[in-house]
């Protein structure tokens, strides 16, 4: 196992100049020994490039990769001692489940008794013990993918195990069980795990630390609750959560934050010198407020949807002649009077969970 440090950038073409020329913009990042990480972002965000740089499949066009302080930038995945699990099962159909699991160990000349005990342990963790003597050929896709996971996890001496969307072929009903397995295995084996996915459930459930990426940039590294409660970048607010965070234009006048012509909060020192910012509040934290309440703005409801366990109420805020204002979504518990389309309401948008942004970055100390 290794502590992995990255200080690099990557462009697929020579002489990158603009941000768009980079698949990965310059970044510094450390994966601690034994940690569980996820790289999360939409397609084209650079997460797979980053994974391939860690494994050694891609050499960064600038900078370096350190494993336990040693520069491994020029080394192959094998030299780096990396285990990988891919989207689709990579196994030998003609071998038994046990032989498949043993393969990475046998390849490296691990003694037979050691192989047997390690294969037994991994098989037990993945609930494959009953199938060890069966040929892999006859198994269903999800059982095969479990073998792939097992092969990735079977070696104790790996620097890290890398997963590239490993649950793609798994039936939705089985996914949570495998997620649980992966978490348990991480607790037991204490391997460094890095997991690439575009699925927030996968990333947030699996990882202790999630790296959120967009357009070649890692915009935040944090726990699930960091990303939910304190998105450091507007992209994180938008991308995490369904629907994502609401954003509203705000102005700063006489050290007061104004939204849609209403003073909603007293500005903190960080906003004394600026005249505008963006207020961000998640639908989970928008409330129905009394007329004229502190921290609330008037809205006209455009849609009220019964989503079964809660209501999603959308309202337009700040529409004045020629300006459409912005849509704000509120996720409301069903145990209250729910407004309907066309109703005039007040949305409470300021509270301990409200964030403020400038140039897409969160501002600390925005409110007094």
């Amino acid at each position, binding site marked *: 196992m290794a502590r992995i440090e990255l200080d690099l950038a990557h462009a697929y073409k020579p002489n990158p100049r603009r941000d768009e020329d980079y698949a990965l913009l310059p970044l510094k990042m450390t994966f601690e020994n034994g940690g569980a990480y996820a790289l999360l972002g939409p397609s084209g965000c650079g997460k797979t490039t980053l994974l391939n740089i860690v494994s050694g499949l891609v050499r960064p066009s600038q900078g370096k990769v350190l494993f336990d302080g040693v520069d491994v930038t020029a080394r192959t995945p094998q030299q780096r001692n990396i285990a990988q699990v891919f989207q689709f099962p990579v196994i030998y159909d003609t071998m038994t489940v046990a032989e498949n699991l043993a393969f990475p160990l046998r390849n490296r000349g691990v003694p037979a008794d050691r192989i047997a005990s390690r294969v037994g342990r991994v098989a037990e963790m993945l609930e494959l013990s009953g199938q060890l003597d069966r040929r892999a050929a006859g198994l269903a896709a999800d059982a095969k993918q479990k073998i792939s996971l097992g092969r990735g996890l079977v070696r104790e001496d790996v620097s890290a195990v890398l997963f590239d969307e490993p649950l793609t072929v798994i039936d939705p009903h089985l996914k949570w069980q495998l997620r649980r397995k992966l978490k348990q295995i991480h607790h037991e084996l204490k391997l460094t795990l890095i997991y690439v996915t575009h699925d*927030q459930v996968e990333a*947030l459930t699996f990882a202790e630390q999630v790296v959120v990426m967009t357009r070649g940039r890692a915009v935040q590294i944090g726990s699930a*609750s960091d*990303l*939910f409660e304190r998105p450091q970048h507007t992209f994180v607010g938008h991308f*995490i959560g369904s629907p994502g965070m609401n954003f509203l234009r705000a102005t700063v006048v006489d050290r007061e934050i104004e939204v849609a012509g209403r003073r909603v909060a007293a500005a903190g020192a960080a906003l004394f010198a600026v005249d505008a910012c963006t207020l961000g509040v998640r639908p989970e934290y928008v409330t129905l407020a009394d007329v004229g309440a502190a921290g609330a703005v008037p809205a006209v409801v455009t849609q009220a949807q*019964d989503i*079964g366990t809660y209501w999603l109420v959308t309202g337009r805020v700040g529409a004045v002649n020629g300006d459409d204002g912005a849509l704000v979504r509120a996720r409301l518990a069903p145990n209250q009077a729910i407004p309907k389309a066309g109703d005039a309401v007040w949305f409470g948008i300021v509270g301990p969970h409200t964030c403020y942004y400038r140039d897409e970055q969160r501002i600390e100390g925005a409110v007094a």
Partner: protein
Amino acid sequence: MELKLERVEQRVGAEVHLYPLDIALVPLAVTVLLGATQAGKTSLMRVMAGLDKPFQGRILADGADVTGMPVRERNVAMVYQQFINYPSMTVAANIASPLRLRGEKGIDERVRALAAKLHIEPFLDRLPAELSGGQQQRVALARALAKDAPLMLLDEPLVNLDYKLREELRDELAQLFAAGRSTVVYATTEPTEALLLGGHTAVLDAGQLLQYGPTAEVFHRPQSIRVARAFSDPPMNLVAGTAAADGVALGDGLTLRRALLAGASSALTVGIRAGALRVRPRDGDVALAGRVELAEISGSDTFVHVDSRIGPLVAQLTGVHTFNLGEPVTLHLDPQHAYVFDQTGALLLAPH
């Protein structure tokens, strides 16, 4: 359009794909076909479109029998899971194709308006292959809308897109459907998608049409365990119980206090939606102690899998909550928020 299916049955060889069913689609509204893979959604849609002739039964469009009439003679627009466009034609030409076929006037203007609606105006001169998946599906949708057909069928149109794109496009589609120009049929495997689209929902399972009604009503009052199962994500928690004097005995000495109707069977099933379980107690709750198996975090919700005193349960908590594997936890349930089904799986009681 008023589309009505009477005793429609579909077989392929000896295999039954659809058991005899009747449905009259609510005109000029969205009907969601909800069901797992293989439930019969695509078979039903193909019959509605005229792509396949049913084995039995009649299809009536605005009262006229169109059973067996091929799709090209019917005015139907379809959108599939895969992004299907003409690869050698520009985006503009793709969208214009149904209009050109009909020799319509003012095509450029119409194409531009549709492209604007679906946010693909900047790409009108490009080829589909130069666009992202989401943009390609928007082109296919724009072409289907250009057709302005009285019946529009969409077979899991968003399934191959990233979830954020799905969210965005679903919203836009819901708005377009709300204009009420066509009767829309939309197939999905996802209960939440059905709820977000609203309209009416037809629940399908193993080739059978189980229930059809306003979406929220079907969700809140599923007529059977099968409907409840198909229309709950995460799956509804189902716990076996027996009728007792003061409610339903759940085992482990626990009773769910609920007034049962006279004549209820003795063997019952209690259904608990994940969202009905809380970690914070209220007066009158039943307490369900257990241990955390896993907390899945979706971004807006945390789904806590608990091995409880009455069996495995999943609770849905708003926001992000962290639990350690194996941690003790007590879930709380208001007995009025539970469903009760009889031994045949039919709904006896829904939450108040």
